[in-house]
């Protein structure tokens, strides 16, 4: 008597698994109606709005957005992340970007630094000078990400050594420490203070020592929908939206 072999997972099934994995992993050109955008963390609220407005006008287009520090996004693109559009906080953030990946780059927004404090302002922070006060809990972005580099430049110009307790991975993580009430102050962008609404209060930094950033929007593929999105952001309506989120013209 022969025992019947169980007919479960044969080699064929494993072949299917391998093929499926390969399909997931291949950086194939995104479908023409899906636009993948990698954007600096500071653009979170503005780009959510911009993409919602854009898809309202272009019902056939699906937007996929991912936010992170510009330094992280550039590394992702250099390592082959499939994206159509890259929007960075400041032009120097694009320096480590593989030049062969760039098809076009356009400045589309400007931003300046601002101090964010909890709305109750428990440490009575009234200006940049206060951030050097001993015992104050100041949170900054990591030195490798644009908001951290800009903050370091501003403190150097002002001749202040900040009482920093943490250098966070991106500007939203930095702001969140103030929103949670764990930090007395954070140096973020003016747009972040605007986007946070009542949760935090902004304390301006004088123009003489402030660091201004020009945000570039970069196309990585020739996808026509991606180009249409970039045109929308750079165009009049996109600029109007960006200004309502606290960005200036580039």
């Amino acid at each position: 008597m022969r025992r019947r072999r169980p007919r479960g997972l044969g080699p064929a099934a494993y072949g299917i698994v391998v093929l499926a994995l390969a399909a997931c992993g291949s950086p194939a050109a995104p479908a023409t109606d899906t636009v993948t955008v990698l954007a600096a963390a500071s653009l979170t609220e503005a780009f959510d709005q911009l993409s919602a407005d854009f898809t309202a006008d272009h019902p056939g287009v699906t937007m996929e957005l991912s936010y992170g520090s510009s330094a992280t996004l550039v590394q992702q693109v250099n390592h082959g992340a499939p994206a159509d559009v890259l929007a960075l906080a400041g032009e120097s953030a694009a320096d480590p970007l593989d030049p062969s990946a760039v098809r076009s780059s356009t400045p589309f927004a400007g931003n300046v630094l601002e101090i964010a404090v909890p709305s109750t302002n428990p440490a009575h922070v009234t200006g940049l000078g206060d951030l050097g006060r001993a015992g104050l809990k100041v949170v900054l972005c990591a030195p490798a990400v644009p908001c951290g580099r800009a903050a370091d430049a501003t403190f150097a110009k002002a001749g202040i050594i900040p009482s920093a307790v943490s250098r966070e991975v991106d500007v939203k993580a930095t702001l969140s420490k103030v929103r949670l009430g764990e930090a007395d102050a954070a140096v973020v962008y003016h747009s972040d203070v605007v986007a946070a609404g009542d949760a935090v209060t902004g304390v301006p930094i004088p123009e003489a020592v402030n660091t201004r950033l020009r945000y570039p929007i970069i196309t990585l593929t020739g996808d026509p929908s991606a180009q249409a999105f970039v045109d929308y952001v750079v165009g009049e309506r996109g600029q109007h939206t960006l200004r309502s989120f606290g960005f200036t013209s580039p």
Partner: protein
Amino acid sequence: MRYAAGLRSRLTLGVPAGLALLLLVVPLAALLTRADWSRLPGDLATPTVLPALRLSLLTTSTTAGLCLLLGTPLAWFLARSEHRVTRWVRALLTVPLVLPPVVGGVALLMAWGRTGLLGQHLAPFGVQIPFTTVAVVLAETFVAMPFFVLAVEGAMRGLDPRLEAVARTLGATDVHYLRTVALPLVLPGLASGLALAWARALGEFGATLTFAGSFPGRTQTAPLAVYAALEQDPQVAISVSIVLLAVSVLVLGVLRGRWLR
């Protein structure tokens, strides 16, 4: 026929087994091939790496000490009780084991943060935990303690109950019995629990970043330094990763007697 069937069955098991091995080994091998050995000493001497390694050594050792001091008695109670409450406590202990570390970080903030459950009562005394080295130790202890307690509890359960009965007839108290009889006998379990907890503390990332932040020399441990370096100088990140890999292999060596026989 028989041969072909044998071959097929070999392939059915061999192909996935080989794939599993590849999935695990290739990334480690890739890390080693990308290492620039001549740059290694220089990379490790950079101003952020050395303090990060030192901080990791300090905090993980403190965590291991806390596990030993606080975890051993807990393991002792868990090992000798079959009470319903004990079973609940044991289930509770496994939660940090499987919890995403970043969730642990949020939970720690809610407990020890300035406005947290316990933190709000500490703040008036000028005690603030977040962004301090103490926060790093708390985060590491939160994730590492369960490993230690469960390992030691398992070892203690293996003890012959007659030993305790005999010790009692000789007039030994709990503490006396634990110190002179039980602990020397569970020493291998204690050591492996300690090594496991230490290794888990060394790898801690999510809870630390969320709860303690990242500041060189104060809260930026080695894994956080790897993450920070990746955006500035990936080669430094690879060099520190090599060191952490070497340390992990070393810990495995310590555990060898127990699991790798």
